[in-house]
């Protein structure tokens, strides 16, 4: 039968979201910056969506929301702005779990001279707040701690770290892309200065994301050449995508508790079934608070890429950390930084659930996964899989 269990990569569009978007891909159009009625209508739709985004994350005002094209863009914008302030000196403090879009700018010419200090997670998959705080120095250009790991799902002590950052005057970026729409996210409680969320991780469209910027927090736009988004981000707004984003936020807010229960039930059903279908499986971060829909599982003696391909051939989509499009296989840096041994990291797949998944899919998947694991183990270690 097959099923899509890679919902951390992206999720299918909720049909209610699609319905909200369709007019803006058809009979309605307009540049939200135009003054005529077409522009006014588009602007109205965009501002309604902005309100929904603000409400989902508890922003004080919709004006604190900057629409971007992706979570990567939002993260990049914050870090590039910090690098500009750093002026080729000082440091940036990042957790070892961050999405590559956070450390990415450091490796560009704009990061020259700025030291990147990495605070790795504990074996639990959670960054120790006191270790993170210890790495902060007054004057660090920015710090970054994601709300929940995209690979393992472990939830990070953002509020505690934010307090430490505030004391030292270091602005904090919190990438909440994997968390939003699955667990409550409140920018007030988090206490960070920047929060990133993206529509397509919770059944909204690709191409719409948002950066919340605390009023008064330092910022410089990545894209310039227009007055859109209060000059925080020049570009004609992607109205249809933003409208879909707003709809996805509204649905997530209204259904959040029920969704979390459904997702956790799928995840728990899967993890409970592992004990009998794939003995020896290790769930990373199992002891820590986790997102309800993410399961990072190691199968000792198995090579992740081979397992992923076998499952794909059976119609089941799962993810293997950091394998790039060309098929190169490396163990996930995030897992290695948790202190997970190479061999275990290389045998890890990520199974992530969404609202489109059903319990029967999990039940059908488990024996297929078990057979694939047993067969790969029986085949022994492959020559030169890496």
């Amino acid at each position, binding site marked *: 039968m097959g099923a899509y269990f890679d919902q951390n990569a992206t999720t299918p569009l909720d049909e209610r979201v699609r319905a909200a978007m369709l007019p803006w891909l058809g009979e309605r159009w307009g540049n939200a910056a135009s003054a005529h009625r077409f522009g006014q209508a588009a602007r109205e739709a965009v501002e309604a969506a902005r309100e929904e985004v603000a409400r989902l994350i508890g922003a004080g005002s919709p004006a604190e929301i900057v629409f971007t094209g992706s979570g990567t863009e939002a993260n990049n914008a914050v870090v590039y702005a910090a690098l500009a302030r750093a002026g080729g000196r000082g440091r940036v403090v990042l957790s070892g779990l961050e999405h590559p879009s956070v450390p990415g700018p450091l490796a560009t010419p704009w990061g020259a001279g700025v030291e990147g200090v990495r605070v790795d997670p504990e074996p639990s998959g959670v960054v120790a707040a006191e270790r993170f705080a210890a790495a902060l120095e007054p004057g660090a250009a920015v710090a970054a701690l994601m709300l929940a790991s995209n690979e393992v799902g472990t939830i990070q002590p953002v509020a505690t770290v934010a307090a430490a950052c505030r004391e030292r005057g270091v602005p904090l970026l919190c990438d909440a892309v994997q968390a939003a729409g699955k667990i409550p996210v409140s920018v007030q409680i988090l206490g960070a200065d920047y929060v990133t969320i993206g529509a397509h991780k919770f059944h909204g469209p690709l191409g719409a994301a948002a950066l919340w910027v605390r009023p008064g927090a330092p910022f410089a736009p990545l894209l310039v050449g227009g007055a859109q988004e209060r000059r925080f981000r020049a570009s004609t707004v992607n109205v249809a995508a933003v409208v879909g984003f707003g709809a996805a936020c509204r649905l997530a807010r209204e259904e959040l508790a029920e969704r979390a229960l459904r997702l956790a039930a799928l995840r728990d059903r899967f993890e409970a079934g592992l004990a009998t279908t794939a003995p020896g499986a290790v769930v990373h971060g199992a002891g820590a608070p986790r997102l309800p829909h993410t399961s990072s599982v190691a199968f000792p003696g198995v090579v992740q890429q081979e397992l992923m391909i076998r499952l794909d*051939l059976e119609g089941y989509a799962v993810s293997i950390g950091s394998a790039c499009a060309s*098929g190169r296989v490396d163990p996930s840096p995030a897992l290695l930084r948790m202190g997970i041994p190479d061999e275990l990291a290389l045998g890890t797949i990520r199974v992530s659930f969404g609202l489109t998944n059903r319990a029967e899919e999990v039940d059908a998947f488990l024996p297929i996964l078990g057979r694939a694991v047993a067969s*790969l183990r029986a085949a022994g270690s492959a020559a030169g899989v890496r």
Partner: protein
Amino acid sequence: MSGAGAGGRGPIAVAMSGGLDSSVAALLLARAGEPVFGLSMLLWEGSGRAAPGRCCGALDLGDARRVAAQAGIAHHTLTMEREFRERVVDPFVEEYLTGRTPSPCVRCNTFVKFDLLLDRARRLGAERLATGHYARIVDGDAGPELHAAADAAKDQSYFLFELTRERLGRLLFPLGERTKGEVREIARAAGLPVAEKGESMEVCFVEGTVRDLVESEARARPERFGAAELGRPSRLVDSAGTDLGRGEPYYRYTVGQRRGLGVAAGERRYVLEVLPATGTVVVGPGEDLAAPGLAGERLHWVGEPEEEVTVRIRSRHPGVAARVRPRPGGRVEVEFAEPQRGVAPGQAAVFYRGTRVVGGCWITGRLGPGGARRPASGSAGGRG
């Protein structure tokens, strides 16, 4: 048996390079209703880039994906760069540095496609592996037999001689009964994006010249290739040891080569021998290339040993009747029915009976008159 609809057994993995032949192989299997999926190998840095005009191994990942999508089959990519380097590229460089003429395509088939890839395909659930090679697998009394392709002009059985019955039993060559023209027609009729692709007999991982590759690899890793004197001009001599001037570095030459000798002489001259120790290249008239037989090593039989065979001493050699005399330690002597030119150390000598590949060996040198092995030091070069 070697056709596309081979059978009602388990899943088949098809090796897909994005070239014409492997694409059509995949298409034929998919059309035959076989449970098939595509695998591409990343073998060499940059092999994922499109490299027009190159043949197997030079992966065009984009085309492989497009063809798989069009054939409606799954497709995945495996990285085998390290293994390819160790098993194919390094030996290729080493052979040139030791004055031999490498056969990288045979090594790639033996040690990469039909060893590593076959193993990986099996681990991924495939019972058999299919490739776009032009060769046939025929059910014989004693098991599967390897035969030359129906299209003699495209036959690639020479490159497959190190296969075994056990491996042949797990392989499929869907193009073995077809001509290149038919294969292209199938691709055109199906509208495959690769239908008009040409092919090249060049070695897939050599992007510039062989000399450049040998020198850059040897320079980068002296611990692997020794401290060869790279770039030093060779000394060209004739069979009597007469100095004929300087040539390019010795590893630029292979036995039997005529072009690029740079020797001003009235008659055509050929490379007779390459002597790395002294950087000497022995050249002479074509008739001096003729040898009554060859000495070989790593004797291999696909099935049962044979004595009377037809031997091909390079991929496009038409073949000559020969007698195979095994020697201890996998060594072998092969006596030709009539002398042959261009017995080049490092090349494969492949034995046939009719269209059937029975085995082969790797050439180490020529047999002298009367079957005696020529001394390794050679004639004139030994004095250098």
